[in-house]
């Protein structure tokens, strides 16, 4: 399936792009992270501390075991600091 991926804050800076489209068969967010991390050193570094990363699927915060079936957009970012 095709997935739009978006990156924010220091995760965006580390992977070097704000958005990309990937072709993937990842079943869960965790699977997708493993795929991305295997790409190159930049991605491996960006995703090295998954405790400091949050994920959203189609604008909804999810845990890493969330399924990707039917998903259109996945986003990765550090813990939020609004307010």
């Amino acid at each position, binding site marked *: 399936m095709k997935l739009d991926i*978006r990156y*924010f*804050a220091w995760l965006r800076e580390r992977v070097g792009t704000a958005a990309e489209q990937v072709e993937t068969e990842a079943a869960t967010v965790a699977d997708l992270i493993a795929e991305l991390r295997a790409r190159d050193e930049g991605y491996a570094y960006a995703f090295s501390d998954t405790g400091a990363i949050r994920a959203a699927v189609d*604008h909804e915060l999810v845990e890493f075991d969330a399924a990707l079936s039917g998903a259109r957009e996945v986003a990765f*970012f*550090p*813990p939020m*600091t*609004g*307010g």
Partner: protein
Amino acid sequence: MPAPVRVQQAPFDMGAELNAFAATVPGAGAVVSFSGITRDLADGTLEVMEIEHYPGMTEAALSAIRDEAIARFGLTDAMILHRYGPLKAADPIMMVATAARHRADAFAGAEFLMDYLKSRAPFWKKEVTAKGAAWVAARDEDEDALARWSRGG
């Protein structure tokens, strides 16, 4: 009447926002507002506070938080306004306001909105000085503050 959830780059006038909100809450005896203001660094060197957000998700998250606060505390109404983009020290960043019949619910509703918004709305702050830029780290206290709302319902 302004939209109850707004995400904008433009400055806002907190007094005008409070008045506009309070004018539309018939029957409420209590109106609480919270305004967040950009703080300078301890050594006074902040040049810019950059606020990044996730368009689309931000509005959805704020609307969901607002709906939850209204239902949970029986609020007459609630509003959330949050800026993004480059801010200077002393610039207002964001504001929430709540209205309820009695003060306890108006206060609790506003604190609930703030606690959720701090850790669950997709905003990220970056402090820029002449020496470089640093992303603001999430505070453990902010995550802890959320925990109180799951106790006792």
